């Protein structure tokens, strides 16, 4: 696949990737960085993409892997400084306080509940229910068996229902 053609096809999914990144990082600047890094990696390793397979799922996989890589780095680095932020730099995907004006604001209880789900549950619901990816593709993105995906969807919905009930009772 020619570079320009690959870029054109990949950039057609930028909105879906950005939406996914927003629910993962919860902050627009971090979502920007995550999507940009995802595309740069995709362009750099475009020769590894197998034409005929699902490009969107491949991009979601790169995005999630990138997020987990930086997120885990942040998780290891944060205890170094007292305020959780290393003094030499602000790490990517640092969880800033939500009232700092840059965090994504929840407009509905559903959105609020999604933000409180663990990453595995959030991802599986976003990919399977929001983006409509087949379970096989979701399994590929999350690097787990299809059975695990089904189990996570079930448990994610259970947790989501519980959160929504809590919001309703409050």
């Amino acid at each position, binding site marked *: 696949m020619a*570079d320009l053609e690959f*870029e054109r096809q990949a*950039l057609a999914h*930028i*909105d879906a*990737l*950005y*939406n996914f990144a*927003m*629910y993962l990082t919860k902050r627009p600047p971090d*979502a*920007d960085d995550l*999507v*940009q890094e995802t*595309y*740069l990696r995709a*362009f*750099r390793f475009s020769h590894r993409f197998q034409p005929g397979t699902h490009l969107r799922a491949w991009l979601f996989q790169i995005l999630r892997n990138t997020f987990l890589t930086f997120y885990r780095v942040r998780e290891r680095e944060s205890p170094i400084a007292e305020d959780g932020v290393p003094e030499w730099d602000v790490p990517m995907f640092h969880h800033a306080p939500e009232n700092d004006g840059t965090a*994504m604001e929840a*407009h*509905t*209880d*559903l*959105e609020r509940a*999604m933000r409180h789900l663990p990453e595995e549950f959030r991802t599986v*619901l976003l990919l399977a*229910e*929001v983006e*409509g990816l087949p379970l096989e593709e979701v399994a590929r993105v999350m690097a787990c068996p299809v059975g695990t995906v089904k189990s996570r*969807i*079930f448990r994610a*919905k259970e947790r*989501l*229902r519980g959160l*929504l*009930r809590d919001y*309703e009772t409050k």
Partner: protein
Amino acid sequence: MSDRFDESSDETLGRRLSGELRRYTAPPRLRVTILDAASPPRRRPAWLAPLLAAAATTMLVALVVLPVLPRVVPADPVDRYMRAVVSEHARTLMWGARHSEILPAALPWLTQESGIALPQVFVGDERLEFVAAEPVYLERQRGVAIHYRDVDGHMLTYIALPAAAGLTIPEPNRVQIGRWRPALLRDSGFAAWVWKQKDVACFLISDMVSADDVETFKEYFARVRATTEPVPAY
């Protein structure tokens, strides 16, 4: 709303997620930023770096090797002499004579420097004006060069060198001029009369190459040949 949650089956919840959950759209500048960030490495062809490296290596090798490569020189002694004489005449046309000496006052000095004695020498007449005389070093031999300018502005150079062994005047190029039979050779836009005078190789070169000029050039040869006698001094 409570009704919705009470009856929220998996299917209903799935529909709510796909239908009600807010979707975020990528800001337009993000696409531009991505393309800008990806452009520099993508637009440089993959083959460019190795090609440039190979070209640079080739040039370096050429610079190192070329000076030590044996030069292609003509096998024929006459051709070698001719090339050297043409170069000397062209140098004179561009830069002038290195020394401008007055004949015959400079003859002793010329003989000492060139190894060629000139018991008789053509010092010019109403058609050919003497310009300069100087020692030269051509084909690894010392010799003498005398420069003239004719009334039409043509520069002529007379060169006398010790004749190398094997130097033979090519018969097909010989032209009868009075009692002499010099050869007329052409090279690089110049014409030259070539002859041997005992053990000395003589050349009279000019840019007179057209048919009319060659006739005049014959007269100039006759004037120089009749009144110039080079001999090895040592």
